[in-house]
């Protein structure tokens, strides 16, 4: 085939342009990942410097006294997230089962859409909602209120993941069970949900990791506490709120503690995320 010089030059230009654009996308990826390494790097260097055994075992100290730790905040985070999981997961999984079982139904479609929309509601709005519904009339600033706020954020995440995972179960499996005369509901619980359980667990853990890092909805539900919280109806401290208060304080001591708290918080959250993703290794699709 004969190609004239002008054509040849044009092709060269096209190839160069293509290479240039490919290079740009690679550059964009690198630029996008720079903050990740910067944040993690500073966390490690600044946080590790102020972390020690006391940090995990001692209570916060007043300004100027030095030392102290975030023992109550660490326990508080686990308590809040734990109760939120107990409230949110059954509702989320149940709703997910309903959505998967009634895939085409109009009500199911409305609920699915509502769940998707709820995922996009700013978490601080959930905080206001819980404040108006539970904090003001009933419980005051309390562990229970904080957990309810976190649970509300978890529910749509768990629902959508559970639905997706249940839909991945082959229809033949269900039909085989039904053909053996197993009632519909037993089929769903013992065959379908059982098959999907690892995927559902993945979604639950990711939702837990997500709410463990939430600060905004806790500000006026769980509030924060300088001491141990001994009842569900007392305010409770959490790592996120503690890091926030310490970070915006003007005291160098507290700011150092904030870095340590942020390191612990990130370690907890990333451990869950990494653990789950390493186990499933990209096979599971999870609602965002």
């Amino acid at each position, binding site marked *: 085939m004969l190609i004239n010089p002008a054509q040849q030059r044009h092709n060269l230009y096209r190839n160069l342009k293509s290479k240039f*654009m490919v290079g740009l996308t690679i550059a964009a990826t690198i630029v996008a990942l720079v903050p990740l390494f910067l944040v993690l790097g500073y966390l490690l260097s600044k946080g590790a410097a102020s972390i020690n055994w006391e940090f995990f075992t001692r209570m916060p100290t007043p300004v100027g006294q030095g030392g102290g730790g975030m023992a109550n905040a660490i326990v508080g985070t686990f308590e809040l997230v734990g109760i939120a999981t107990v409230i949110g997961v059954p509702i989320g999984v149940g709703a997910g089962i309903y959505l998967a079982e009634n895939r085409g139904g109009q009500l199911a479609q409305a609920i699915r859409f509502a769940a998707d929309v709820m995922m996009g509601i700013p978490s601080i709005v959930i905080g206001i909602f819980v404040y108006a519904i539970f904090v003001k009339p009933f419980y005051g600033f309390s562990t229970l209120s904080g957990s309810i706020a976190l649970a509300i954020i978890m529910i749509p995440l768990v629902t959508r993941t559970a639905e997706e995972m249940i839909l991945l179960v082959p229809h033949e499996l269900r039909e085989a069970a039904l053909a053996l005369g197993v009632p519909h509901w037993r089929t769903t619980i013992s065959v379908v949900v059982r098959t999907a359980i690892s995927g559902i667990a993945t979604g639950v853990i990711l939702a837990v990791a997500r709410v463990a890092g939430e600060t905004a909805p806790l500000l006026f539900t769980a509030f924060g506490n300088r001491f141990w919280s001994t009842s569900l109806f007392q305010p409770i401290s959490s790592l996120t709120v503690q890091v*926030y208060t310490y970070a915006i304080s003007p005291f160098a001591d507290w700011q150092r503690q904030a870095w340590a708290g942020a390191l612990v918080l990130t370690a907890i959250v990333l451990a869950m995320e990494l653990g789950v993703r390493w186990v499933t290794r990209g096979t599971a699709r999870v609602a965002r």
Partner: protein
Amino acid sequence: MVVAVAIHRSIPSPKDRPRLAELANTVTEQVAATRTGTRRARGFGVRSIGDRVFNLTTLMLALVILTLLFGVTVDLIVNAMPSIKAFGLHFLVSTDWDPSNDQYGALPFIYGTAVSSMLALLIAVPLALGVALCLSEMAPTWLSHKLGFLVELLAAIPSVVYGLWGVFIMGPWLRDHADPALAKYLGFLPFFQGPRISVSMLSAAVVLAIMVLPYISAVCTDVFRAVPQTQREAAYALGATRWEMVRMAVLPFGVSGVIGAVILGLGRALGETIAVAMVIGNRPEISASVFLPSSTLASVIANEFVEATSDLNLAALVELGLVLLVLGLILNIAARTLVYSTTQRRFSKGN
């Protein structure tokens, strides 16, 4: 029956075999009818009590979601009522936010939210598109998965950690290095003039950009991966280079999905609270310069809610939340619709 359905599905264009297609359709309809409408047929006449109880239980749990969405909306409207009654629509355009005189106007916060989110998108969208194209079109599969994983980690870091990093590391760095450069080259614009402060609109925008990027790029990657392989092959067959293939086949197909992803990112940026509250400086005034502190709807709620001085103050803050909720609902409904319309096509257009 099943065979007919299978044959129907295996034929590329059913129009060639109208009668078979018709047969298959009626069969499919019958199967669908027995599956949904008349479930009775399954359990030899009557549905067992267990089935009914189970279905009712899951239905109740699913209805919790609808109730919550409805409840949040109604609750915010009810609690914002005192403020809505006192200020009416003037609330949205008044710049006067003065708790000591019980005067409240939302404009500084609406402005702050809009500008910080827009700036964040301005930074994040081109990068996110680059990332998504790199992951879906350029990188080999093994690398693409690893990079995608790293980008998703960005979304996993708690926002309070971004706030902490933003206050102590990024803000001062921007003030000392980025701001002077911007002032030098773009200083003729009113946005880049005046004193430089480390907690500022620009800091908030950069932190927001980092935080929404993974969401936008993840949705865009999904959208681009949904482009049928045949489209790419067709472009290559016409002699397209890789970039020309992207422009001819991938981008046009994904355009509504990309818009959806951007709106989704906007929704995230609007509602982000703690990181912004920490780096934006919280000053309820409108100023052109991005080097100065500002305030957003979410950040002012986080800062003042617990310390609200009067019932009207609280109601005004709730009304700010209501504005945020309404914006969030509109954006999410729009975005989900757009993204669905793209990624669902993958399933109907054949594998």
